[in-house]
């Protein structure tokens, strides 16, 4: 490997060149990672439509992702709904409009916070576990052993996780929405001392099908994102146990960031479709 020439070392622009080199390398690395991820995610998804399918693995993952995440989704849903009711009541009371608290909470939960919050919470729990579990299997050669035994790890490990995440996040979002509205209702009745029936009437009456469709389309995308990113970073782990830790961090960070970014794009798209 050649170091910089004496002329380069003396050049006042050598630092600039190094910076450009670094940017160049990082940009190439980023493009390569996006390309690898796209191919990985597409292949994992397409496996759903061809044999062999591993249904027992799907059920196991559905239990881990769905039932396992239920408690955090219920708790975060209740709290978020409660906070929304508290905050909105404080603001709306200035305009004498506390009666619309129910509408505000239900629309916000169903259209936005339910899917996003569930996506981020589940990615914190499951994208990390997917990355660390698959990463550990990579560094201990269990993935290679599986391939050597004639089994495709993409079909056996990745596709069931993706399918389970998509389907379970859909139901978990409904649970989060319901808990959010319930949490808002509890705060409205017991802390804001307002009428519970009015809260529920407002929550129900102003709800339209496009709102529900918006809220239920998003978790399908978020489930795909969190699981494919978790599995992607897990399967490309290198560098022993330290590498497993690195993959786990990257999986959670990127899954959360991309969920929020895709939420913005989806909201734009769905709003333009329904208005």
């Amino acid at each position, binding site marked *: 490997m050649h170091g910089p020439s004496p002329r380069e070392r003396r050049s006042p622009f050598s630092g600039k060149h190094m910076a450009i080199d670094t940017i160049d390398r990082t940009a190439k690395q980023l493009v390569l990672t996006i390309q690898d991820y796209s191919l990985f995610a597409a292949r994992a998804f397409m496996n759903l439509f061809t044999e062999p399918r591993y249904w027992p693995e799907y059920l196991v993952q559905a239990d881990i992702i769905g039932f396992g995440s239920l408690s955090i989704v219920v708790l975060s849903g209740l709290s978020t709904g409660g906070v929304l009711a508290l905050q909105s009541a404080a603001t709306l009371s200035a305009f004498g409009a506390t009666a619309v608290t129910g509408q505000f909470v239900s629309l916000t939960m169903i259209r936005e916070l339910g899917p996003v919050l569930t996506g981020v919470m589940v990615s914190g729990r499951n994208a990390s576990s997917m990355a660390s579990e698959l990463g550990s299997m990579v560094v201990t050669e269990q993935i290679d052993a599986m391939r050597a035994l*004639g089994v495709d790890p993409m079909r056996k490990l990745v596709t069931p996780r993706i399918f389970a995440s998509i389907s379970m996040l859909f139901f978990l979002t409904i649970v989060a929405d319901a808990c959010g509205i319930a949490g808002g209702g509890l705060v409205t009745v017991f802390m804001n001392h307002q009428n519970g029936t009015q809260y529920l009437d407002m929550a129900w009456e102003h709800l339209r099908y496009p709102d529900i469709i918006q809220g239920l389309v998003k978790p399908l995308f978020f489930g795909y994102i969190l699981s494919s990113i978790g599995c992607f970073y897990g399967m490309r782990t290198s560098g022993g146990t330290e590498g497993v830790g690195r993959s786990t961090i990257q999986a959670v960070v990127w899954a959360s960031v991309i969920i929020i970014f895709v939420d913005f794009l989806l909201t734009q798209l769905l709003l333009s479709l329904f208005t």
Partner: protein
Amino acid sequence: MNVNPASAQPVPVEPGPGQSAQNPAAAFAAGQVVAFRNVSIAFDGPPVLEDVSFSIAPGETRILLGPAGVGKSVLLKLTNGLLRPDQGSILLFGEEISTMPEEKLFPLRTRTGMVFQEGALFDSLTVRDNVAYQLIQERVDDDEIDLRVRKALRFVELEETFDYYPASLSGGMKRRVAIARALIRQPELLLYDSPTGGLDPVTSTTIIELVMKQRDVYRTPSLLVTHRLQDAFTLCSHRFDPQQGRMVPLPQGETDPNTTFLMLAESRLIFDGSLQELVHSENKFVREFLE
């Protein structure tokens, strides 16, 4: 001393006495289980393997020697398509695998058995499910699976571990379970990646005895990676006696005719031949390694 009949045909990288210069075409003669031709591979840097050519004949056990980090495990993973070469061609059971799509490689791999360096057992599965992994995927009947798993575990003398999880096994036991897993479908080729690495001498001897048992009882062709000369020499100078149920030394001056050596150094295959040729080699790397 017996001269290995197989060693005269495969690619003599460093020609031994009576051997001609390198001839990759000869290695592709019909009937070879594995044939490498001018294989090279690199990972973001200098080549790990460069221009490697050799073959494995039916019934032949090839011992791949070389210092740590020279690319022995890489070569093993190239053999069943777990890695793909940058250049060259690899034939496995007569099929070109270097460009074969992954989906087509899976059925081909089921005809091979591989024992990984640390066993690579699946943590979440019992010994029974680990050993029966391929049979479970093929939806073989549970009773038959139990029967075949017990038979495979009896072969490695670990029948009592049937219901255990890998975490409760010692390093040596894990390797033996890994051998049972590799053998359960009676593979047509066995690949051993440093099966005795990091084990105490007694356990190493047990593992080598199992390798020898498979070689002499089932005549399965194999490629064994090791950097332990004593394991290699034991394999060459002993045979498994089914009557006594243990390995016994061959008569003085005799070696197993189907066990031959390959040696890697500095990314290249520097030796391909019999034990006799190995110990008389003038190659400085071979001499250094032996000494």
